[in-house]
């Protein structure tokens, strides 16, 4: 059994899986808050939508890293899967974790920040972008760091 390849597959799966969980929970929280405001103030749909979609990026980062792992192991190439040692598999698995774990936590917390921003925008719409979006973007920064580390590890740190 090719344990190296199995670990690389697990890494690709975890990157999307964890970051996707973070995004979906974050979107759920922000979405519920937005519908609460929209039930009273439907005219704020545009701003609410902007704040709701922000936590979705973590899932996308996870997917991109998963695709990079798939490219790395030649999943889409015509010559079959790359031969990967156990150590290399473990490295790919480890490299996939930053985007997954950072995505999981930052997605949830970004959803909560967006929910706070949505509620603030309900009372003071002029602050919606200034504070609501900017604060949520600060949480995003850590998802980007996770993505960057995973990306660099996979493309520069691991040679197959």
């Amino acid at each position: 059994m090719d344990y190296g390849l199995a670990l690389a597959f697990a890494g690709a799966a975890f990157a999307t899986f964890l970051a996707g969980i973070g995004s979906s929970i974050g979107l759920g929280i922000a979405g519920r808050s937005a519908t609460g405001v929209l039930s009273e103030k439907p005219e704020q749909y545009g701003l609410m939508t902007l704040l709701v979609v922000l936590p979705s990026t973590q899932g996308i980062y996870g997917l991109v890293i998963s695709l990079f792992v798939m490219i790395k192991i030649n999943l889409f190439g015509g010559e079959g899967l790359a031969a990967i040692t156990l150590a290399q598999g473990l490295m790919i698995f480890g490299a996939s974790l930053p985007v997954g774990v950072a995505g999981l936590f930052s997605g949830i917390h970004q959803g909560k920040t967006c929910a706070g921003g949505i509620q603030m925008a309900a009372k003071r719409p002029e602050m919606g972008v200034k504070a609501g979006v900017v604060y949520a973007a600060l949480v995003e920064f850590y998802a980007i760091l996770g993505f960057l580390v995973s990306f660099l590890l996979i493309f520069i740190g691991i040679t197959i």
Partner: protein
Amino acid sequence: MEHAAVIDFYRYPPIGEEDWQYAFQTAKVRSLETTMLSRGTLVDMANAEDFTAALDLLGGEDYAEMQTAATLGDVENVLLAKRAAVRNLFVDLMIDKDLVELLRARHDFANMRLAIRRVVTDRPVGLDYSDFGSVPAAQFEEIFKQENYSLFPYYLQEAVEEGVLAYYAEKDVRQIDYAIDKYYAKYKVEKASEKGSVFLLSLFRTQIDLTNIRTMLRLKMADRLDKDFFLAGGYVDCERFVHGLDVGYEALATLFYATPYHDVIEGGVAYITSEQSFLRLERLCEEHVMGFLRTTRSLAAGPQPIIAYLIMKEHEIRSVRMVLTCKKNGLDTRLILDRLGE
């Protein structure tokens, strides 16, 4: 469960954690809060020339339908409808129905107090009860007529017993109020504790303290030294209130200096001694509760903002009624402002 009279906070007690199940409900309430009347509007109403001018100020607000109200009766009907709508919305928004039940108990106990008073004084039980309790107003008369108290929830059965026994012990109707107040205070603190609601526990304990402050000052005013009227379960030990009965008015603020109620007592006592009136004390007590409720604004989700909205909206409706009634009856603006707060 016995709660120690320990004050481990500066001004307002803790309100508990966020609960993200309430994300939708909290956001809805935040939107509704924007339609609430500002203090400025109420002060303007108090300063208005007359009833009609005060009513006009509500034109652009949440109370626009009051524009058509010509009499106090019309105003009352609109306000009652508004209050019922707020309460129904609250019930719809709350996910934890046990907390709704706990808040409904306030009305059950008030209804109970009224019903027992009528029964022991041989008056008809009547139907004019609050309909927001767990027991429908219409059932009260029937239950008392049949004397079948088992139809009440368990906590009300015990309250009936306490109230009736207290009355027959001294044949004094005031004893009914004291007995039921004591039972209710114990019940709500125990229930909030059992449900694990930090917010409601803090709210109830604060309310108990404020009730004790009012009781202490009313007893002092009446030169009475009854020490059994204080409710247990608050943050301040009953002993301190009993001590308050023995000291002069000038020493009361010092006695409560290390409690969150120093300002309430200082302001309330100053007005009582100068005007012989509890108006400002009542206002300061309400403001203290409102201040506590406003701390829920730091939470982005949870049952706390929903409960706070209900109480604040009910308070707003009471304030509108008070100002308009005073205006209709031509009361002095200064008196209204004293009650309202400037």
